[in-house]
């Protein structure tokens, strides 16, 4: 589905992606892990065309994405932090997104799933962080795209919402979609991931199943396995 | 009185009838002559000229006569010279349409020319495309009234003036309309005369132009759209009242140019939309009172050597510059004028602003120095420097103030 070759990106003098190669072919849940500043978000934004790489190429379903926009019809994206036009009401935001990108399916179901009905007539500027994130999630999942990218989806969610989000992700997976997630919550990773991509200093450090990562680092626990990698690298 | 009937020979194809001192000139064919009729008339006779086109030039009037055109007979000079020469006192010419005066670079050909006569009256005539229309030389006690002069002057060198007076006195120029000549009205060495109720428009040089002409009065005239406005020069005791100077737009154009004018009164005139309302140079002891300066580029420019002028009760409304001065001299008095740009207050409600108004802006000083900077007119930067100059004057004469600026326009 996505083929990334030799991706380089610098912001000023800081090298964020440094010759990254990656291929997603399989359906299922891929988790991107890595320490802060390792380039996770940059990688995702490169795939979305929001960050323009200095070098290298990204192919989506066999086509270069540079300067293209139609391929984003195949992608649902949940940004890390969601801010919306302050003067719009929640309802109007949904209408607007529908207007801008026709083809949403399960908006109503999602709204009730996250109990957003009472907020529909509130202005987006007045929402709490968690509610805003729920709105964000609804916008992401209301489209039926083969690729779903979630950047820190759990931020600000209460336990109930978190459980529902998890269910949602699993449901989507079962529909046969490819899902990319970045997160720092290892329990979530262990629970749902099929595949782990570990990025370090702008390169793929590890890619594979959780078990093989544990094996490689000789740790029984994912969290410790990750910590182990980091300690080794910076030691 | 004699009852006489004259039959003109067939060659002339003209007939005139004389009854009790009245001669009727009748146009019956092309080659007819008013001159013949004049020649045959007795002094004091009245000639009635009937409608028609008379091809004549240098018609010479050598005895007191009254010529009256009936329904505007046309005298076509065929561009050969003067049309009518008045060489006798007490001549009246009225009701003619005079066309095609010969243009010349050496002679001032005119439709009606008087030389060394008195008590003449020229009224109700129409002049079309004259080189000069009315040319009065060394004549006295005349009336020029209700004539309409319409030229097609294009350049100064090949065109003449509408009403041109030279070395004359006690002439009244009243209610004439003059358009598109070189100068509408021109006076040189003219004394004790009145110019009143005339409308002088679209003349390529001046609407009114006079020099060395003392003790004259100009009132209720309209000067509009002239190349350079009105020029009055080298004259004393001039009285100008109720005139309108309007739309004299142009590079070096002004409503009124005063040059070497002494002891004049400029009262109740309107200066509207002129590049420069009044441009004064070497003008002393002039009183400006009750004038309205509206939307001019400059209301008044003093170009040096202007002393003892008094300005009061004038309205300065929406001019880009109210007053401009070259140099720092100031012997002139500004008092109790209304300035639309005045921003002061009147705490005691006596109708007079409590802080003095300074009519000269720094920008007008700059424009005097570097004319191109006019392109910055009304720019914020200019407003800022004007303001700072207003607060602490450096370049503009700091004693030039109206100490009693009015809060409301003078009616």
């Amino acid at each position, binding site marked *: 589905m996505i083929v990334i070759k030799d991706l380089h990106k610098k912001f000023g003098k800081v090298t964020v992606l440094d010759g990254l190669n990656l291929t997603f072919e399989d359906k299922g849940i891929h988790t991107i892990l890595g320490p802060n500043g390792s380039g996770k978000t940059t990688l995702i934004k490169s795939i979305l065309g929001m960050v323009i790489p200095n070098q290298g190429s990204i192919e989506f379903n066999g086509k270069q994405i540079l300067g293209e926009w139609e391929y984003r019809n195949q992608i649902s994206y949940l940004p890390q932090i969601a801010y919306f036009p302050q003067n719009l009401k929640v309802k109007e935001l949904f209408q607007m997104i529908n207007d801008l990108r026709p083809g949403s399916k399960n908006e109503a179901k999602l709204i009730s799933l996250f109990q957003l009905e009472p907020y529909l007539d509130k202005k987006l500027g007045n929402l709490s962080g968690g509610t805003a994130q729920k709105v964000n999630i609804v916008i992401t999942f209301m489209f039926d795209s083969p690729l779903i990218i979630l950047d820190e989806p759990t931020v600000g969610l209460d336990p109930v919402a978190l459980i529902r989000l998890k269910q949602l992700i699993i449901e989507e997976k079962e529909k046969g979609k490819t899902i990319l997630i970045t997160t720092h919550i290892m329990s979530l990773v262990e629970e749902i991931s099929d595949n782990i991509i570990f990025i370090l200093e702008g390169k793929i450090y590890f890619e594979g199943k959780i078990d093989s990562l544990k094996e490689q680092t000789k740790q029984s626990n994912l969290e410790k396995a990750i910590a182990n990698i980091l300690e080794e690298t910076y030691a | 009185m004699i009852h006489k009937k004259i039959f003109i020979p067939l060659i002339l194809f003209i007939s005139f009838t004389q009854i009790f001192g009245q001669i009727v000139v009748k146009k019956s064919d092309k080659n007819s002559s008013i001159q013949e009729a004049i020649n045959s008339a007795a002094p004091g006779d009245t000639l009635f000229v009937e409608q028609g086109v008379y091809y004549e030039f240098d018609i010479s009037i050598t005895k007191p006569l009254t010529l009256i055109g009936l329904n505007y007979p046309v005298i076509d000079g065929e561009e050969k010279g003067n049309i009518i020469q008045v060489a006798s006192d007490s001549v009246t010419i009225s009701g003619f349409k005079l066309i095609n005066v010969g243009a010349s670079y050496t002679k001032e050909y005119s439709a009606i020319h008087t030389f060394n006569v008195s008590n003449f009256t020229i009224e109700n005539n129409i002049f079309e495309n004259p080189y000069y229309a009315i040319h009065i030389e060394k004549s006295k006690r005349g009336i020029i009234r209700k004539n309409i002069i319409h030229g097609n002057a294009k350049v100064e060198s090949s065109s003449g003036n509408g009403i041109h007076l030279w070395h004359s006195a006690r002439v009244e120029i009243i209610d004439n309309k003059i358009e598109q000549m070189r100068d509408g009205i021109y006076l040189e060495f003219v004394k004790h005369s009145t110019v009143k109720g005339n409308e002088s428009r679209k003349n390529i040089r001046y609407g009114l132009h006079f020099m060395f002409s003392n003790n004259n009065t100009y009132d209720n005239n309209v000067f509009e759209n002239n190349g350079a406005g009105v020029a009055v020069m080298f004259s004393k005791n001039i009285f100008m009242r109720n005139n309108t100077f309007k739309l004299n737009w142009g590079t070096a154009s002004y409503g009124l140019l005063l040059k070497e004018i002494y002891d004049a009164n400029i009262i109740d005139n309107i200066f509207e939309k002129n590049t420069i309302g009044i441009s004064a140079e070497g003008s002393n002891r002039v009183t400006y009172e009750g004038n309205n300066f509206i939307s001019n580029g400059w209301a008044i420019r003093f170009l040096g050597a202007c002393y003892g002028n008094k300005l009061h009760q004038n309205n300065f409304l929406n001019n880009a510059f109210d007053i401009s001065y070259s140099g720092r001299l100031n012997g002139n008095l500004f008092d109790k004028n209304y300035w639309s740009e005045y921003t002061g207050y009147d705490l005691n409600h006596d109708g007079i602003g409590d802080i003095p108004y300074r009519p000269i802006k720094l920008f007008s000083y700059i424009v005097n120095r570097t004319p*191109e900077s006019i392109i910055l007119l009304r720019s914020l930067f200019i407003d800022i420097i004007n303001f700072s100059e207003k607060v602490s004057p450096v370049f503009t004469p700091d004693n030039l103030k109206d100490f009693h600026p009015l809060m409301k326009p003078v009616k």
Partner: protein
Amino acid sequence: MLKILKYGFFDLMRSRWSYIYFLFYLSLGFILLFLNQDVGKAVITLLNIILILTPLIGTLFGVMYYYNSREFTELLLAQPIKRSNIFLGQYLGIALSLSLSLVLGLGIPFLAYGIFQSSEIFNFFILILIGAMLTFIFVALAFNIALIFEDKIKGFGFAILTWLFFAVIYDGIFLILLLVFDDYPLDKFALFTTVFNPIDLSRILILLKLDISALLGYTGAVFQNFFGTNFGMFSSITVLSFWIVLPVTFIIYKSKRKDF
């Protein structure tokens, strides 16, 4: 693009700043006309205000809007929408809503006082047109500034500086040059210099319509021959349009290469 324009536009039309801006012009119009009934004079006063205010408000609103809607922009960027459309849409949204505040804010009082019966109708129309063009120009410049500076504070600082430059500093430098080189014929230089400042160009265009063309002619034939003719009017408007088109092109160019 039209959809984005629509949302940006309505978003702004709802913000209280648009109302304040609109009410400001509305009250300004009424106060001016109330104070001096004379429509012609009110137009001159308006000229000064429009020349200072529309660029200032355009710049500040442009920068502010861009920074405030940055996250929303990111949301849009992840959607299947062409990049240039997002920015053009937002740009047009803000420029249009500001222009509308201006047109309605001034239009209503002047209509109420019978501008259609006045001979100043054409001047008024030109004034409003130029106010709108200045809004479009300075919002475009503001968007460029905001696209270049990630940092809000820097962006705002630079935006204000840009306005200050075109509104004041430019003319200051220009005047100094005129005074220093006043031994040389300067009219062509002055004409040329004017073209590079949209505020100056607008000012002169309006001044000419306010019948002081001959005042400019005072300096010589060059100004009058240029600005006084239809050709001059036409080319001035064209140059002003360039002042819109060029920054907008640069917005597209810059936005295509920017990371979010």
